[in-house]
C-alpha cells in the first residue's frame, strides 16, 4: 500500500492538468460519460484554463447520463449567454420538456440560431403542431389526413361501423357479431318472458353497444395519432 502510494507520488504527470484533460477527453470520446465527468471535475480542481470548455463538457456528460436537472444547474456556469441559452434549450429538448426548451431556444442568436430553429421546429412536430413546425423546418408534402371522431361515433350507431370507418375491419366485424348476438339474445328472452335472463342479456347488450360506440371514437383517435406519428417519422427521417 505504502509502496503503491509512493509510486503514484513519483508519477507526477498523472496529476498534471493537461494530462487529466487529455484523459477526460479520451473517456468522453469513448462515451464513458460517468468517468469523463469525474475527470473533468478533477481538472477543474487542478487547472484553471479552458474553464468554459470544461463546463460545457460537464453539461454534455450530465445530459448524456440523463441527469438533466444537474445539467441545467451546471449550465449556469457557461458565461456566454448565447451559448448558455442554447445549451439549456438543448438539455430541455433532450429531456422532452419542449415548452421549457422553446423558451431558451427563442433567445438564441448566431452562430447557434440555425440549430435552435431546427429544435424549435422539431419540438412543435413532437407535439404534432405541424403548422407551427412549418415555420421552422421543412415538412413532408403529404400532410396527415385526419378522420373525425364524431363521425366515428355516428357510424358506430350501426355496430362495428366506427371501427370500419377507422380502417379496423376485423374489429368492426367482431363488434357487429357480438353486439347483435347480445341484442338477439335479449330479444329471445324477452319473447319467452324470461325476465331475469332478459335483464342480464339486455344489460350486456347495452354495455357492449356502449363499448362499441366508445371503441369507434377510440379507433378514430388512434388512427389520427398514427397519422401524426407517420408525419413525425417522415420529418425525423428528413432531418
Amino acid at each position, binding site marked *: 500500500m505504502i509502496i503503491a502510494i509512493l509510486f503514484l507520488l513519483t508519477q507526477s504527470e498523472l496529476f498534471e492538468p493537461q494530462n487529466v484533460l487529455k484523459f477526460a477527453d479520451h473517456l468522453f470520446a469513448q462515451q464513458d460519460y460517468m468517468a469523463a465527468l469525474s475527470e473533468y471535475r478533477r481538472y477543474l480542481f487542478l487547472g484553471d484554463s479552458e474553464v468554459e470548455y470544461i463546463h460545457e463538457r460537464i453539461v454534455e456528460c450530465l445530459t448524456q447520463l440523463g441527469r438533466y436537472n444537474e445539467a441545467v444547474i451546471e449550465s449556469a456556469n457557461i458565461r456566454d449567454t448565447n451559448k448558455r441559452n442554447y445549451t439549456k434549450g438543448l438539455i430541455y429538448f433532450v429531456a422532452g420538456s419542449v415548452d421549457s426548451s422553446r423558451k431558451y431556444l427563442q433567445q438564441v442568436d448566431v452562430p447557434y440560431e440555425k440549430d435552435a430553429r431546427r429544435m424549435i421546429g422539431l419540438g412543435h412536430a413532437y407535439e404534432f403542431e405541424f403548422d407551427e413546425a412549418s415555420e421552422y423546418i421543412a415538412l413532408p408534402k403529404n400532410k396527415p389526413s385526419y378522420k373525425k371522431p364524431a363521425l366515428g361515433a355516428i357510424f358506430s350507431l350501426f355496430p362495428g361501423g366506427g371501427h370500419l370507418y377507422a380502417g379496423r375491419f376485423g*374489429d368492426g366485424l367482431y363488434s357487429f357479431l357480438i353486439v347483435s348476438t347480445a341484442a338477439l339474445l335479449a330479444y329471445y328472452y324477452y319473447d319467452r318472458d324470461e325476465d331475469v335472463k332478459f335483464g342480464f342479456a339486455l344489460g350486456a347488450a347495452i354495455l357492449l353497444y356502449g*363499448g362499441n360506440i366508445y*371503441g369507434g371514437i*377510440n379507433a378514430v383517435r388512434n388512427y389520427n395519432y398514427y397519422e401524426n406519428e407517420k408525419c*413525425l417519422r417522415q420529418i425525423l427521417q428528413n432531418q
Partner: protein
Amino acid sequence: MLIQQPYQTNPVRIVSSATFRLYQTLISPSQGDVCNFSPSCSHFAKESIEKYGILWGSLMASDRLLRCNPWASESFDTYYSGTRDHKIHDPVSNNYILGTIKKEIWHQ
C-alpha cells in the same frame, strides 16, 4: 383532471374489484393464457374502473372485449404501442378518450 377517490370508501369499486379478483382466481386459470393483450382484458377492466370510475371504466372494458378477437393484430402498427410479454401492449391510459396517447416514438 380526475380526482382519485379513496378506493376503500367506494362500494362500486369494492364490488367490481372483488368480482374481477374472483374471476381472476377461479375462472381465468381454467381457460389458460388466452388473451391477446397485455394487460389482459380482466386486468384492463379492473384497472380502468379503478382509475376512471364505473362509467368510463365499463365503456373502456367493453371496447377492449370487442377488440380482443382473432383479428386483434390487424394493422398492429396503427393502433397499438408495441408488444410486451409476446402480447399486444395496450395500456389503459392509451384508451381513455379524453386523455393523450403515448407510444414508443416519444422514447426514441
